[in-house]
């Protein structure tokens, strides 16, 4: 009971520390996620079945019109959004797991482990990520699993760089040395000494990378190398409807709205984290 009250108090404090824009973004993002989660079960239409004319305008039956094959746009937006957001989230989480683990490892162990990992990451990052993804996808059969892995690996290089540089500042702190002097093992040092102290900037980075993952996945789908028909995500829906501009703008706007909200929240997180300690600027 008491912990519940504490949590609600903390949520209220957080809410109060946000600017108006941030509050709107949090609300909108929450709403989007809610619609994506429960929306499809309320839709009377099948997302893959044509039910009207091609590119019908807005009406009571079809609040967002119909698409290139006469399917209900709203239903497809909700279904496609689920896929986009879920895959982006999966990829970001996987990328974070990889990047953070190896970043901390590099910082804590140092020496050849650090040199080796950093060189590998440097080479992957020297490649423009879109080109790398395009080449890999051009050669392999596209599947959701491969998409997630590609985005995760590309993401993990940036997470690695950030987590390594943040952890490097922490591992030289006397409190980490004290723990080392006690003979603590690597796992303890990672979980108990380093992780809690880099959490705020890492959280902001997670948001940033999540936004990038949505954009990246959508861009691949838009270029025809992401999600393949009959399945659809927001990016591939833009591609399908590219010949009718206002229609193509609907899924594009869905992506835009989501990423704008995510980035405004990230901005707020970064500003908070900067007050704890300055995070490395991200390009």
């Amino acid at each position, binding site marked *: 009971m008491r912990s519940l009250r504490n949590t609600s108090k903390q949520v209220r404090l957080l809410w109060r520390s946000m600017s108006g824009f941030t509050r709107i973004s949090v609300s909108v993002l929450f709403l989007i996620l809610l619609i994506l989660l429960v929306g499809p079960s309320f839709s009377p239409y099948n997302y893959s079945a044509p039910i009207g004319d091609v590119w019908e305008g807005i009406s009571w039956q079809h609040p967002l019109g119909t698409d290139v094959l006469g399917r209900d746009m709203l239903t497809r937006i909700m279904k496609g959004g689920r896929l986009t957001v879920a895959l982006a989230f999966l990829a970001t989480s996987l990328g974070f797991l990889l990047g953070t683990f190896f970043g901390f490892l590099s910082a804590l162990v140092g020496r050849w482990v650090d040199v080796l990992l950093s060189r590998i990451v440097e080479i992957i990052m020297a490649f423009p990520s879109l080109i790398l993804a395009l080449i890999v996808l051009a050669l392999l059969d596209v599947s959701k699993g491969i998409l997630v892995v590609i985005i995760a690996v590309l993401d993990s290089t940036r997470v690695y760089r950030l987590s390594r540089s943040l952890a490097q500042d922490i591992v030289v702190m*006397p409190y980490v040395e004290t*723990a*080392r002097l006690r*003979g603590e093992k690597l796992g303890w040092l990672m979980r108990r000494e380093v992780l809690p*102290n880099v959490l705020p900037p890492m959280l902001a980075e997670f948001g940033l990378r999540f936004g990038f993952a949505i954009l990246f996945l959508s861009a691949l789908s838009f270029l025809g190398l992401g999600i393949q028909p009959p399945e659809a995500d927001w990016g591939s829906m833009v591609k399908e409807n590219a010949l009718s501009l206002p229609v193509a703008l609907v899924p594009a706007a869905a992506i835009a709205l989501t990423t704008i909200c995510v980035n405004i929240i990230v901005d707020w997180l970064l500003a908070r984290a900067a007050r704890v300690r300055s995070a490395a600027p991200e390009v």
Partner: protein
Amino acid sequence: MAISKPKHPPLARNDARRERTNDLVLDIAGLNIVSSRQPDAPPLLKGLTLRLKRGEVLGLIGESGAGKSTLGLAALGYQRTGCRYDKGVVRFDDLILQHNDEAMLSSLRGVRMAYVAQSAAAAFNPAHRLGAQITEGARCHATFSRQEAKRRMVSLFRRFDLPEPDRFGDRFPHQASGGQLQRAMIVMAMLCEPQLIVFDEPTTALDVTTQIEVLATIKKNIRAQGSTSALYITHDLAVVAQVADRIMVLKDGMLVEENETSSLLTKPQRPYTKELLSVYQVQRPRGRGTKKGAGVLLRGEGLDAGYGGGTRILEGVRFDVSEHEILGVVGESGCGKSTLARVVTGLLPSREGSLWLGGEELPRRLKRRSKEQLRRVQLVSQIPDSALNPRQKIREALGRPLSYFFPQRRPAEREHRLNELLSSCELDLKVADAFPAELSGGQKQRVCIARALAAEPDIIVCDEITSALDRLIAKGIVELMLDLQKKLGMAYIFISHDLGLVRAISDDIMVMQGGRVLSYGAGSEIEKSKDAYTQKLLRSVPQMRVGWLDEVLQKRG
């Protein structure tokens, strides 16, 4: 911005009051400066009044948070980010400083008033040559021509004993040492012969042997320019006693006591001033008595160490620490004393030499040392703020070594031990449930000591444990350490740059420079040492009496 309206336009001379203001360079009345971020916090300066006569040097002294720097900067009409001018009048010469009139303030700063910052290394722009920066104020305000400014700069360089005075100005800041930069900064301040110079802790960041050079420079030149007055801000009473005519003691933004220097030192009126004077008198309680020839606890032989493949930082260091002994290690920055602490604890494996703990050899690498060996040698480090994990409560910080080294103890036993540790370090038991950020610097250092004690060590390596703390708090920490040693009887390696302190508490003293041991022995033996550097170090420790600096300078001729 709220400002009390001057009765006359700021730039007009006030003839009626001229006589009174004429011999005052600075006249501050009822000055309030508040925090702009936390409006509810107590003001940084509370109704401060200050008068500085022409040609006078006024010392401002106090501990951190006393508002000395804020006051010094306010004298130049400047507030740092986070500070806001509230009310009061700052009268400079015949002008009333308008806190929002940047044009007026700019026309005064650098010409008629100047500032010498604490860390000259940071205060010079790394992108420009020193000469360009030093003459910049004069050139921009068109006080002197470029040639004239340069000529004056070079002659000041010469007077301040800077190397290659004709070409010193061509150097970039990173090509000069800390002491040279500090002197260059004073050259910059004096170039336009200002009426007021604010010295903000100008020697605090320097080593004692460098400090004495800079102090000598200030002392010799501050009055050479006749009409120049100065505010000298410092936390070190012994330093300010050498240069100031008059001293103001500040605490929490308010004046505690103000008097002529010699009277303040000999007849302090307020308890706080007396406390400040007492920090130079640490006494070691004579308890168990340190028997020479008691079993050697820790022995180092021929220790060589360095970072990576780089140059050696320690060269052939050897020492013995007996049981219950305090070994003081003293030296200036870069002498290798902190590296010694890292080698002893195993954080930096030595390249050559060996360490013996109670008869058994200590492996060089931390990973090779047994849990028991790790337990017996503990470290307390310099900066308490970074020595405690900000995300762990004190209970966890102290509890972890207890459960790690003594897993066989029951939880209730550990809880009891935790409370015992807190109280033995004179900490409130409530501290256990606080995060480090909620504690003061002194409290944090006490927690660090308690954490070291939790392992029930035989020897504690104390690496500059007082240098990040205010003098009064530092004194408390040293007394605590001595008290604990008397009760528990462990040995210390006490590393410090403060020779005065080390001499007061140690059995044996080791003087280091450039990674080597220059002299080693009891305090009386060190004093008789033939080593030139040791003698220089001994001479450079400031002493709390008027005229100490003059004597030292006289002796040098």
